[in-house]
């Protein structure tokens, strides 16, 4: 069994108005150190034993369904799951 942690964010070139609004709130309450804030999604998959290559599997799922490559980037980590 594997645990796959997938992080999805809007592409760098795309404005994140939600992130900007949250950043302004932080600035307003005194955290002026925050220069940028971008909001994304976190997905956690538990994958059962398989003969298929885990990287291929995860990339396929990300590109077919889990992300929209037109607007989003993703990265992932694979861990052994108990």
């Amino acid at each position, binding site marked *: 069994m594997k645990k796959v942690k997938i992080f999805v964010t809007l592409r760098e070139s795309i404005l994140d108005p*939600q992130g900007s609004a949250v950043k302004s709130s932080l600035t307003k309450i005194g955290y002026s150190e925050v220069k940028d804030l971008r909001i994304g999604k976190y997905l956690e998959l538990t994958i059962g034993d398989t003969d298929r290559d885990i990287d291929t599997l995860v990339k396929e799922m990300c590109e077919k369904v889990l992300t929209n490559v*037109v607007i989003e980037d993703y990265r992932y980590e694979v861990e052994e799951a108990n």
Partner: protein
Amino acid sequence: MKFAVLVFPGSNCDIDMYHAIKDELGEEVEYVWHSETDLSGFDGILVPGGFSYGDYLRCGAMANQSNIMAEVKKAADAGKPVLGVCNGFQILTEAGLLPGALLRNKNLKFMCRPVQLKVENNNTFFTNQYEQGQVINVPIAHGEGNYYCDEETLATLKANNQIVFTYSDDNPNGSIEDIAGIINERGNVLGMMPHPERAVDALVGGADGLALFKSIVKQWRENHVNN
């Protein structure tokens, strides 16, 4: 002409779409549930607005995985007219039938009001009953209608006159180049955020959307006479 109105869990403009076709346009129409696997008996496919699958993951992403979408792709490949409105537009971009994507409105608000739309291209399956440059009044109702595509795609859209509608007075969602609706390169798949099906009767605020549906029927009849 016989239209299909697709229905997903969470669609909420399907009844308006059905009404527009049946009662205002006077053509045949049937609801088609998302799990169906055949659209061969229909001449035109309408993908209505709403919140299919509760907008889980991304607007339109789950709907794109349903059985019926493989049939919508077949219909589009066969040259049948396919219209996606609002969530329907989002579904068609997720399906890759139209380029680009719809992002969260720039002001982060759900916008629900009439807008002025400019007909940028009246030489299409969907707009031949409008004048070129005509400004029409059609309502919008969306939180994620901010059309985005990369510069290369935008250049292609412009070069092929694929931008069909733009917001003519003020842009409610921050879309690139004020885009409100685009068509595919072949000219038989249109996606738009505003709701023409909600503008088909002067008694409820205007009928500027009706010409869009009349355009489809006119073009369809011409294609079938010529063939």
